[in-house]
């Protein structure tokens, strides 16, 4: 956590911050766009600011916006947010080895602040979790420097995005940029044939079940897509083997 002085003064803190700096414009563009998209979709300034600062997860924020605007029930919004965030569950299994020696609340703060970029940079620099105390501190300081730059650029540009959005007329339809961003993430996840199947089944199911109340079509779509993919995996192990990796 970058609030602790001993970490801030460690040389690895600067290395972590310097590694994150080239990524900052990318994070900034995202934050800016998410800020604009939140307000343009009809969220109030307070709601948009709270979301940008607290939720700190662009893809689940963008997925939640249409659901919040449509008045979906909270559990559907949270379940959708969790599913969009599932990649972090996989990351947490990996980060566990690095963070387990820390007290729980420090683990939670580190975990909360470690978004995609910070995770990738951290495990690239430290392929193995440290065992000796001084190397553990170095790893923690690097992660703190990393997340400090990442968090700051996200939050500052989210706020700028929210502020700018008030000067742009709604009729321009800039909220659609949020959907385009999700289209890009969707494409980036389409790396195996079974995942493409999952996306196609989910889209068809979400459209077919659109009339369901409470945006339950999304939950139906996730359940249908995941169970079908698991069934195909079981029936056709050859396909799975071929596309895995």
């Amino acid at each position: 956590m970058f609030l602790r002085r001993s970490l801030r003064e460690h040389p690895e803190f600067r290395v972590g911050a310097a590694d994150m700096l080239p990524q900052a414009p990318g994070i900034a563009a995202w934050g800016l766009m998410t800020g604009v998209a939140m307000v343009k979709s009809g969220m109030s300034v307070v709601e948009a600011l709270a979301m940008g600062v607290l939720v700190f997860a662009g893809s689940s924020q963008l997925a939640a916006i249409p659901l919040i605007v449509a008045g979906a029930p909270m559990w559907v919004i949270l379940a959708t947010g969790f599913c969009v965030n599932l990649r972090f569950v996989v990351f947490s299994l990996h980060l566990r080895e690095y963070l387990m020696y820390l007290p729980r609340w420090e683990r939670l703060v580190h975990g909360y602040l470690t978004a995609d970029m910070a995770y990738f940079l951290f495990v690239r620099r430290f392929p193995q979790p440290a065992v000796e105390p001084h190397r553990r501190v170095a790893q923690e300081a690097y992660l703190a420097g990393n997340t400090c730059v990442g968090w700051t650029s996200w939050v500052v540009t989210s706020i700028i995005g929210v502020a700018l959005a008030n000067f742009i007329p709604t009729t321009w339809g800039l909220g659609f940029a949020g959907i385009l961003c999700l289209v890009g993430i969707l494409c980036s996840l389409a790396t195996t044939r079974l995942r493409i199947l999952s996306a196609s089944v989910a889209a068809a199911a979400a459209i077919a079940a659109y009339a369901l109340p409470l945006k339950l079509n999304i939950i139906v779509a996730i359940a249908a897509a995941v169970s079908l993919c698991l069934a195909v995996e079981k029936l056709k192990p050859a396909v799975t083997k071929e596309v895995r990796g």
Partner: protein
Amino acid sequence: MNSGGTDLWTLVTIVGLACITVLARCFFFISSKSWSLPPWAQRGLQYAPIAALSAVVLPEVLMTQGHLVPTWADARLFAAAAGAIAYFWKRDVLMTIIAGMAVFLPLHLGLGW
């Protein structure tokens, strides 16, 4: 939600989403005990994120007021297609947004699609 006004329930939902961020990012180190997911759930993790995104995104692109878009003259269709092509060309999500909006804004503002 009433547009413009701040809704308490929405704020509670936002705090809930922040807790979801913590839950997902810390999933395997919240508890100090060692444990793991059953194998089927671990495999299911591969397919759920793209399913959730697809279920949210595609209706937003292909539907208007609960029905499939009745006409091709809809800026969203062309913008989303341009965005997807841009992604597979440059492998960059920012390019998707730039290319998609470059198609969306002229069609939407210029032609009123």
